[in-house]
């Protein structure tokens, strides 16, 4: 350990390692020369598991080493990365023994010492713009604002992400989002970089970009690096050393990458690892080969080999243009083209159609339209003579099966076996034979031992296979699959691909969105989707006067209406106050400056006042009832409600949720960490609508949705619950990502964005005090003897 602390006399030597820009930074890094990771006998058992996930892992990583970590799915690779980062107990609880040190101390002693990039693009994104997101770690270590921009630009340059700092993070592709996450880690000059399947969810083009970024970044920041990846081939040239974990969480191989690949080839293949240079495994024969399955399926005879898909495939699409509307937190909506299907598509029985194209080209969106969850702006998807969206839930279940990309949030039942049987039960086909078939199907997909487990406890790959089983068991004539082979090892890949082939040969029609070359090759039709053109930015509109104020002033204006409402005790005073508020509202909503006149100002206020008006009626009514039918009191009470609510309807839509956090923390000095957490949550609220749609569809497609009151209430409850589960997962992942960027110790932090209090803020507050003043003074003027 002492070697790492000696100030190195040879920074020039290391800076010759890779030429080009960033030289000074590299020398700086070499002086640090940290990154020696030592694990000694690390064993980890999360609570609720009988067996440890990691067993007695002992290893040493030297500074600057680049390591590939492989193992079968569920072997604990991600867990080992989190152990190295000292983040095991960030989002989980369990028993940990052994020790982990980084340069002789506990990892994470210095904020951002261990950089971490997670598998799901966006899982670790904190802020709404590129610049702010990279700045997050710098804020946590309280870097002065003036020093942030150079550090941000250097990190973005290292990953080759050439975007203006104010680019919205939501406008980035999956690959760009991963590179942003990498930049966010690099900005803190980590000693160790941990990449947890950084390209698993990306198409090959974006995956290559990310790998190139990693390579470039390692040239600029030569730090100890550990990569976990399923498809290890493309990484072999980038790493020096390879570690292999087995099913039990033990380290079973460790050495130079090519030696390990050569020496351990058979063992790696047995583990199901995608060893580079090996051809794809042969798809399993699933249906025909499984005696239980054929027995049950045909009802008799071990010799009946075939499984047939009955029911006619009649779902077909014309050329489509599909738009998706995102409802933003402030109540406004944003509609963007999400997919364009250039040619009609009618999947024929016994064929497979592959939808291909880069991420963001709308493959999932087309599948959603096929399932009737989205109504195309142009064109139509029909099932026979009806739009597919008009089918009842049971008719839809009979017509098609859908395997979503996010199988975790679309789980309906509480055991694996029940989950597989959901659609069959809804269709009234849940006899013993079907249950036996379900078991056979689980066995084919390697899930038979988990039959009684809660499906939400399964790993991502297991959940995906379960979703396939659940979509296929009742043998709908059409199967829609969204990336079914992502995250599967060689064994489970062979099972999935075999099952799909057998389903197709039995007469089923498949539409599959995929990046998997082997699946594309097997398809009879390949439909290439291009990302839809982005609509031009709407021309700048004039700004409303009140929109010049910051979020705090607007909130204050809305809250100050409470005393203004309470004070008046006669309807004449109330009416005067309301009139003053009305005049102020007209001024506040006046648009000035250059550009188009903004539309919908009045409509928005009226819309927001509708519930308020109902509330006023209700309060007025109850007061009338109570107060001996005294109309004066009742009207006063009703007006009070209007006074309290009206300024909110005018001012709250103008609050920018992104700026709210900055102002709460810097102006009101609220504690920094909760404020940042709330800002991160607010930033994701608009994605909830999409999650809601998918969960709802998952139920509808499986015949368990209905419009009668009881099923409807149950449906709403279950969908809300699914949303909560998904949200909590997001929070747990984000916690890991934020802690890796120094958030745990960021009680005193700096802020990249300024939150000034300007004269429009003062003006809004003063104007909001006016109705209160009127309420106090008016009685004297109005009630003359």
């Amino acid at each position: 350990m002492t070697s790492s602390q000696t100030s190195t006399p040879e920074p020039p030597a290391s800076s010759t390692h890779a030429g080009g820009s960033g030289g000074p930074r590299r020398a700086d890094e070499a002086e640090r020369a940290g990154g020696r990771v030592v694990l000694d006998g690390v064993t980890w058992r999360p609570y609720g598991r009988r067996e440890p996930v990691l067993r007695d892992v002992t290893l040493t990583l030297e500074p600057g080493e680049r390591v590939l970590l492989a193992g079968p799915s569920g072997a604990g690779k991600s867990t080992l990365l989190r152990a190295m980062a000292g983040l095991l107990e960030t989002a989980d609880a369990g028993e940990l023994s052994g020790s982990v040190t980084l340069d002789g101390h506990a990892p994470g002693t210095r904020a951002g010492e261990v950089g971490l990039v997670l598998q799901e693009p966006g899982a670790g994104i904190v802020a709404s713009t590129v610049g702010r997101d990279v700045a997050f770690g710098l804020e946590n270590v309280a870097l002065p604002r003036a020093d942030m921009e150079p550090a941000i630009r250097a990190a973005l340059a290292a990953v080759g992400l050439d975007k203006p700092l104010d680019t919205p993070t939501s406008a980035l592709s999956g690959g760009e989002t991963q590179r942003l996450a990498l930049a966010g880690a690099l900005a803190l000059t980590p000693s160790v970089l941990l990449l947890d399947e950084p390209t698993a969810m990306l198409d090959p083009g974006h995956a290559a970009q990310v790998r190139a970024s990693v390579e470039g970044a390692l040239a600029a920041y030569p730090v100890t690096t550990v990569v976990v990846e399923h498809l290890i081939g493309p990484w072999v040239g980038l790493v020096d050393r390879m570690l292999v974990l087995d099913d039990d969480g033990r380290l079973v191989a460790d050495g130079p990458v090519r030696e390990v690949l050569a020496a351990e080839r058979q063992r790696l293949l047995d583990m199901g690892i995608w060893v580079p240079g090996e051809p794809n495994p042969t798809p399993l024969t699933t249906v025909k080969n499984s005696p239980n399955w054929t027995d049950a399926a045909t009802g008799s005879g071990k010799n009946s080999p075939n499984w047939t898909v009955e029911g006619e495939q009649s779902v077909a699409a014309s050329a489509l243009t599909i738009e998706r509307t995102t409802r933003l937190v402030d109540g406004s909506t944003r509609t963007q083209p999400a997919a364009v299907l250039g040619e009609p598509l009618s999947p024929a029985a016994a064929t497979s159609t592959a939808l291909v194209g880069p991420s963001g080209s709308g493959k999932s969106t087309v599948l959603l339209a096929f399932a009737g969850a989205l109504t195309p702006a142009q064109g139509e998807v029909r099932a026979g003579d009806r739009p597919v969206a008009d089918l009842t839930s049971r008719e839809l279940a009979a017509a098609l099966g859908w395997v979503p990309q996010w199988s975790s949030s679309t789980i309906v039942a509480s055991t694996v076996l029940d989950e597989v049987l959901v659609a069959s039960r809804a269709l009234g086909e849940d006899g013993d034979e079907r249950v036996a078939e379900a078991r056979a199907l689980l066995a084919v997909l390697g899930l038979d031992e988990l039959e009684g487990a809660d499906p939400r406890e399964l790993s991502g790959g297991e959940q995906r296979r379960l979703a396939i089983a659940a979509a296929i068991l009742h043998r709908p004539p059409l199967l829609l699959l969204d990336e079914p082979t992502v995250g599967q090892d060689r064994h489970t890949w062979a099972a999935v691909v075999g099952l799909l082939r057998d389903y197709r040969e039995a007469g089923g029609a498949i539409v599959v969105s995929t990046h998997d070359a082997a699946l594309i090759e097997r398809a009879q039709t390949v439909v290439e989707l291009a990302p839809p053109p982005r609509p031009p930015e709407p021309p700048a509109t004039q700004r409303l006067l009140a929109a010049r104020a910051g979020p705090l002033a607007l909130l204050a204006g809305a809250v100050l209406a409470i005393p203004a409402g309470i004070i008046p005790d006669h309807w004449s005073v109330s009416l005067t106050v309301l009139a003053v508020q009305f005049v102020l509202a007209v001024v506040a909503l006046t648009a000035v400056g250059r550009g188009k006149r903004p539309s919908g100002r009045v409509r928005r206020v009226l819309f927001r006042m509708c519930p308020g008006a109902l509330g006023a009626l209700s309060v007025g009514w109850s007061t009338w009832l109570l107060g001996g039918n005294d109309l004066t009191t009742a009207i006063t009470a009703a007006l009070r409600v209007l006074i309290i609510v009206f300024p909110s309807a005018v001012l709250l839509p103008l609050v920018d949720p992104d700026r709210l956090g900055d102002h709460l923390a810097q102006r009101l000095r609220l504690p920094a960490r909760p404020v940042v957490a709330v800002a991160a949550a607010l930033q994701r609220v608009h994605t909830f609508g999409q999650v809601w749609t998918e969960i709802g569809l998952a139920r509808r497609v499986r015949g368990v949705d209905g419009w009668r009151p009881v099923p409807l209430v149950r449906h709403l409850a279950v969908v809300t619950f699914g949303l909560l589960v998904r949200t909590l997962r997001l929070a747990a992942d984000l916690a890991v990502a934020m802690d890796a960027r120094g958030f745990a110790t960021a009680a005193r932090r700096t802020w990249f964005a300024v939150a000034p209090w300007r004269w429009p803020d003062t003006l809004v507050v003063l104007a909001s005090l006016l109705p209160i003043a009127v309420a106090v003074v008016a009685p004297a003027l109005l009630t003359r003897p």
Partner: protein
Amino acid sequence: MAAPTTTSTPAHTGRGGSILATRPLMGWRTVDILTIAFLGAALGIAFWGWGVFYNGPLSAISFAFPPMQGLLTGPWFIAGVVGGLVVRRPGAALFCEVVAALVSMIPGTEWGATVLVSGIVQGLGTELVFALLGYRAFGIAAAVLAGAMAGPFAAFYESFTWIADWSFGWKLAYAAFLAISGAVIAGAGGWLLTRALAAAGALNAFPPGQEQRESRAV
């Protein structure tokens, strides 16, 4: 497992076998803060949805006996109860309820900015119960009490705003109906919701998840 344990997570247990938050009690982990924020945001959207729904049944009830509309208010207290039950640290209930109120306010409700004040007041009521129990009891009884206590707090605040002209008797009845609704919907309902979330594996980093998992190790 003979290896020397350098890090361990001893489970503190409180009343009725409730597993407590890791010590120090005020040592909020990142995942605690984020979970409350996200839970609050998701429940805030649900609050907003309930607000849209609420007007129908509300109008019907206010024709009969207006204080009974308190029976429909319980769902808004649930964020505090669930936040408190999940994280089990001082401030969790208040924080969660306030975030939910904030998020439900932004799309616009019939109460405008006052929902934020309501959220603070209701959250304080819920928080008070967990505090009085020393943050050591998180069973169903504690949940029911916490949900119920939001009722009188809400009634007290509303007696200055929405129901200022009601007689004292009506206000008292209103407070009672709020408490009943809070106890049943927010208290018992919140407790059930927390258990269900734990069963779904969504609370593994928290005491309820730990209770769930240790009760049936896999």
